């Protein structure tokens, strides 16, 4: 089964090394060698991570050469954050409907009338 594009982006970022690589590429392009430097792992291992990022569409390289700069596709990255924002807005809309319900709802029995009452209507529980 082929994962859909968004899932590939999410799962590419599920790995802490790849997240770190993406964070570093956000400031500027880098070669495989430069990317490998801070990690205690082989260039081959770093290349493997890079391939996952490439397959997800998050990064591109002009050639396979080791000195070819790796470039972060900011648009793809932004799209993922937009998806999360859309989900957030969806949840916010839902909870605004809950706000409305709560505003009309009398307090539970046995609880003292407090500042939770609607100050505009002064509705008692």
């Amino acid at each position: 089964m082929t994962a859909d594009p968004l899932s590939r982006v999410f799962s590419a970022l599920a790995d802490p090394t790849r997240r770190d690589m993406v964070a570093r590429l956000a400031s500027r392009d880098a070669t495989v060698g430069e990317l490998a430097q801070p990690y205690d792992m082989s260039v081959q291992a770093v290349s493997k991570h890079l391939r996952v990022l490439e397959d997800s569409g998050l990064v591109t390289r002009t050639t396979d050469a080791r000195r070819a700069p790796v470039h972060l596709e900011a648009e793809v990255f932004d799209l993922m954050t937009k998806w999360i924002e859309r989900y957030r807005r969806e949840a916010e809309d839902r909870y605004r409907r809950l706000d409305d319900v709560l505003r009309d709802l009398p307090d539970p029995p046995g609880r003292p009338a407090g500042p939770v009452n609607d100050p505009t209507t002064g509705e008692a529980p």
Partner: protein
Amino acid sequence: MSTTGTHETEIVVPTDVPVVRIVREFDAPAAKVFRAHLDPDLFARWNGPRYLTQRNELWDVRTGGAYRYVQVDPDGAEYAFYGSVHEVRPDELIVQTFAYEGFPDGVSLDSLRFEDLPDGRCRLTATSLVDSFEGRDAFVASGMEVGVREGYEQLDELLAEG
């Protein structure tokens, strides 16, 4: 996008666990917010978007219980959601499963924590755990029918360009 200032929903999508966490504060005590989740009629009033009407077909929300509700769109199309209720602790906690009937394998384990805050307010933390990152991402993408399609199309275009 409009803002109400004080307590906008916060979404946490960790990259190391397949979890979505939603945090929201309310100008009401935990008991009230809890009740709005437990009472079927109240829940139906806010759960879905306004253009959908909700019909509760099974509502046995207690420890060891279950629920099932159907959302109907203006064209009469029906979308059913259901789950098992694992734990209900008054004014504090609801733990349940949640699935869309069209895709029962995409089940999530949800915990809803209600916490009282000063001044009669409360914080709700809703955590959904699924069994894979793909499942989680599909979950984040669900319920946004038009947006999802557009999003995929946009992403497809972007990826095709690359």
